[in-house]
């Protein structure tokens, strides 16, 4: 099965007429992703990349049966784009843009509350189920279908993790980039939960980094799970000194637990197989999946 996106996922693209969107939607189409519509306000009725363009997400959904969105809209437009996706009751919205204002993200989190839409990102490479669907900007040629689920906050480390699965002779069920921003849509817990329900996924790689307590929350969730799939964890950022930035308020919220080591400790305590180097992942994977 995989998680969140599949070969029958019907994808619409918000901001389809932009340069980045054009480049990546073409690649996603070539990959076999069922992109069925584009949305660019004011360009409804046009055709782009052979796809019908609509003014609103709602129209695109009604006309084409799209159930997911990948958005390449600029940072300033993200809030209204997500609101539209939520109001159209899409299952999934993937937001690639970086530099989204934090206040906008706080408002977006309120908009998402109680809705059926799951937001991935912003500042993410997106989500890819190898051989089925690509929503985002992944270098698709490094992926192969398989049984390892990958969840990562950092884009580039997502790719590293994918390369590690290849070195272990394995492929990926689904790869999810949660996004590198201060506030993100989907968190580790939602992704972990989905991978645990997915029969195809036999092992999970979890890539965290210093800042925030997303990893600690994930560790607590995993620790309490009755039936656990093996999880390999890596956390980047041990070399960043404490208090590198001005003021303490951000660190106080996390009770000073901000270092990569704190997160590794939480992982280990929860029974997650923790590696010190990202290039150690393939060895652990080979052991687990032999």
């Amino acid at each position, binding site marked *: 099965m995989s998680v969140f996106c599949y070969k029958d996922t019907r994808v619409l693209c918000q901001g389809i007429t932009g340069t980045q969107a054009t480049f990546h939607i073409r690649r996603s189409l070539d990959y076999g992703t069922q992109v069925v519509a584009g949305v660019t306000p004011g360009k409804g009725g046009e055709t782009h990349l052979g796809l019908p363009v609509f003014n609103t997400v709602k129209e695109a959904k009604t006309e084409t049966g799209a159930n997911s969105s990948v958005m390449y809209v600029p940072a300033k437009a993200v809030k209204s784009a997500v609101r539209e996706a939520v109001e159209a009751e899409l299952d999934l919205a993937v937001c690639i843009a970086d530099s989204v*204002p934090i206040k906008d*993200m706080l408002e977006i989190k309120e908009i998402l509350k109680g809705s059926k839409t799951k937001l991935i990102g912003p500042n993410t490479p997106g989500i890819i189920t190898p051989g089925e669907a690509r929503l985002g900007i992944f270098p698709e040629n490094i992926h192969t279908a398989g049984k390892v689920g990958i969840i990562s*906050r*950092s884009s580039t480390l997502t790719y590293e993790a994918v390369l590690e699965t290849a070195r272990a002779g394995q492929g990926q069920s689904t790869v999810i980039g949660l996004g*590198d921003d201060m506030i993100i849509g989907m968190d580790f817990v939602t992704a972990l939960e989905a991978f645990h329900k997915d029969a195809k996924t036999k092992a999970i790689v979890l890539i965290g980094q210093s800042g925030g307590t997303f990893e600690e929350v994930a560790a607590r969730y995993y620790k309490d799970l009755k039936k656990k799939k093996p999880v390999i964890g890596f956390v*980047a950022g041990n070399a960043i000194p404490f208090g590198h930035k001005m*003021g303490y308020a951000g660190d106080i919220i996390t009770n000073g637990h901000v270092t990569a080591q704190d997160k590794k400790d939480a992982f280990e305590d929860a029974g997650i197989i923790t590696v010190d180097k990202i*290039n150690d992942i393939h060895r652990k994977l080979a052991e687990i999946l032999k």
Partner: protein
Amino acid sequence: MNIHEYQAKQILNRYGINIPKGGIAYTPNEAKRVAAQSSFRGPWMLKAQIQSGARNKGYFLEKKAGNKGGIRQVKSQRDILNQVEQMLGSTLVTMQTGPEGKLVSRLYVEAFTKVERVFYAGLAIDRVNAALTLLVAVLNGADISEIALSEPERILKLRLDLDGDTTPEQVDEVMRFLKLKPKSAKSLEVFINGLHRAFVDNDATMIEVNPAGVMKNGDIIALDAKFSFDDNALFRHQDILRLQDDYEKSERELQAAKYKFTYSEFDGSVGCIVNGDGIALAAMDLLRNHGVGTACFLNVKGGVDKDKISSGIKIIMTNPQVEGILINILGGFLRCNLIADGIISAASEVGLNVPLVVRFEGTNKDEAREILEKSKLPIILAETMEDAVNKLVEAMEESD
């Protein structure tokens, strides 16, 4: 983006928060004049305006600045002149500035304000809960950073709404937590709501009043203030953008900002060029395992312009602290061959005098490797991140 204490206080004051009387001074005579305007007979506070915490615990690099820190209390007009001469033009080092410190070019001169007690107040974003959070703590002489680590239960955390004011119940809770007398109620409400509105209106990421004081009449006053803003929201705050102090940044940081690259400096010897913060963090960790520190890292993100990339690489190549360069690129939207072209053009302009290890993966990786090999530059190619770090450390040891 950060601003200075005096600028932060002026903003808070616009939101009704009390601040001590004072003003900014660039010369000893100005300091004297501001002091006379602020208080008839003193004492006064002289506060070095650099963007750092823990200024009072800091020290000056220059002998002429004496042994005292960056925040000084003075009792006479004559002493103002002496102390101001010591501090202005001197370099203040704190636990947040790094060993090179920051040049003090202006002082904030304030009337010393007598308070009965002090407390900590901060506003920041709780990332996991995506919530604006008020933080309050009784200090009792301890440092807030120590309290956060050892006794987090001494810190009250309240979630605030993005819209609207802090609720009366929340203000009451802070009253009880700080054990304030009823006469402080009105002023505390103004203080908290002022912080709250100032944060939301200006797209702040952090406000810290450390400490706030309670005066004899019960009024709350901000004795210090720190303000950080969301860089991604500055486009809607031209007034805040004008407060930016370029002297707080190094020439290289300004260059990088011009091209919209992320650039951070540390005190090690390796310059890293990457296209993601996560990979920078992981590379720094690997270097540290070898006992090698990072001098700086430059994140070129999804950059697609060859000239911009070349300029970015030059920033690293011309950093005198850099004794070795690690370039680790995972091409997606960013094509590796662009980076290869950028490396060659930067090296031909400024020369390549230190070991350089390059690892490419992803879009156009083979083409990029070929470009570097053909260039005949002494560039070492690597397969994985770990391989790249090992090769660089080895090359740096050999060139010693």
